[in-house]
């Protein structure tokens, strides 16, 4: 291609390009100064699976069956079943229930595996901590989280498919 033609084409494409960007002058800036300013978090993103409280009974639904522990691919759930100290009999609730969120890949498989509807996936946007061990949640912490966060019903208000 001859030089004048190249120069002409270059100038033309610069003008065309700037014509596209010039339109942005009229639009409002969308920058949000996080964390001073909170953006509107998108709803419906999975962030942490937690134990939930049964509204009727006021207790957790978990029977310590261990299915979620076995389902979880990276193995971040750890359950110790409660034992009656007097009779040494096992009780149908967890003594300890630990979720290591630092390993969790938020895949939702545990929630789907639980046959007692004891787990719920929450939508809590800010869970970052400075220490990795702070991401290990115990039973009580999970319940606290459950109280603060809101459960997500994936796909815009649709209930999760029942098993």
């Amino acid at each position, binding site marked *: 291609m001859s030089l004048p033609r190249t120069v002409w084409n270059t100038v033309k494409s610069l003008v065309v390009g700037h014509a596209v960007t010039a339109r942005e002058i009229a639009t409002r800036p969308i920058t949000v100064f996080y964390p001073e300013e909170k953006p509107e978090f998108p709803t419906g993103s999975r962030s942490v699976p937690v134990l939930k409280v049964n509204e009727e009974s006021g207790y957790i639904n978990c029977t310590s069956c261990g299915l979620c522990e076995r389902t*979880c691919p990276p193995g971040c759930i750890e359950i110790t079943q409660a034992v009656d100290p007097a009779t040494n009999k096992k009780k149908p609730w967890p003594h300890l229930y630990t979720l290591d969120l630092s390993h969790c*890949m938020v895949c939702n498989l545990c929630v789907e595996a639980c046959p007692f509807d004891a787990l719920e996936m929450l939508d809590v946007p800010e869970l970052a901590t400075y220490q990795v061990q702070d991401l290990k949640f115990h039973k009580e912490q999970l319940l606290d989280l459950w109280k603060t966060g809101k459960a*997500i019903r*994936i*796909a815009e208000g649709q209930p999760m498919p029942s098993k």
Partner: protein
Amino acid sequence: MASTSTTAGEQAPGLQSQLMTLNLGPQHPSTHGVLRVVVTLDGEEVVEAQPDIGYLHRNFEKIVEGWALPGVVPFSDRNDYLAAIANEVCVCDAIETLGEVELPDRAKWLRVLFAELQRIISHELWYGAFGMDLGAFTPFLYGFRDRETGYLLMEKATGARMLYAYNRIGGLRNDVTDAWLKELEGYLDFMEKQAFPEYMKLLIENEIFVMRTKGTGQLTREQAIAWGASGPVLRSTGLPWDLRKKRPYLVYDQLEFDVPTGTNGDNYDRAMVRMLEIKESIKIIRQVLRRLPDGPVLAKARAAVRPRVGEYYARQESPRGEVGVHLVSNGRPNAYRLKWRAPTFSHLQLVPLMCRGVKMADMIANLGSLDIVMGEVDR
């Protein structure tokens, strides 16, 4: 270009040029992830470029041998994290074939829909990043603007932005709503009417872009085949090899679309093929939206997947090329062996070949045009 021998350039007599070794990466904004390229430079000319991989190795293939198969699906998202659905669909295909799980119709169509939406999003990201590689910052903002809208759509349907964990063995975890499908249609309209022409005007039709990319990073068809290239890299050399057409899976045989190809196999053709693929994907999604059947999205009896003894190689067309899952099963709930074929692993091996004798800035362009995702290369 490939046969160019290393020339020291013309030098004034008495001036010695010295070779210099430069580490590009592993933390460098132009290397697309944690890729390290050891570049030997003669002035500004690249004498040799050796990619050094493994910085993002997570031992995927070994870890999943110990996991029950349903857990492999969400983990496979982490391979090509820019096109997670493509991974999921491929690994699900392998498991479902060996496990003899029948997919419901709606799930098949929805998988196509999501795979194509993912292709659009992935190419948008590539568009932005490629512009950056060539020194144009504006296209990056435009590409990422639309990618964000796409991710929000994905998030509404699947519950996550990038790592969806959306496919299950035997279908999809949840259905999509009609409102979501409406929104998706709006996104497609926007992409077609506004965003796509903008992309073309901002970068692809720009004279500087054309001059920078035409004739650089050229590959012949034989080279591309010999090095195991696939996807846009192979198609840009003129070979219309697209697994969606050649080995139709899901419902691709019922859909109408073209396979864009290039002629020269240079950076420009690769860019052009990807841009046209966005258009084709939009076309496919529109057809899916029109013909989406009703019904369940998840097959029953999926609780315990026990694949039969045997092996199967599932291959699918991801935005970057042929993703393959070779699953060997000995009848247990976990895989005996799972081999992942990553398209960009092969593409990365082209870098020494493509970059010999080119200018440093062109080397970055060559790298960018291959669309490399290190998560997939290193696994």
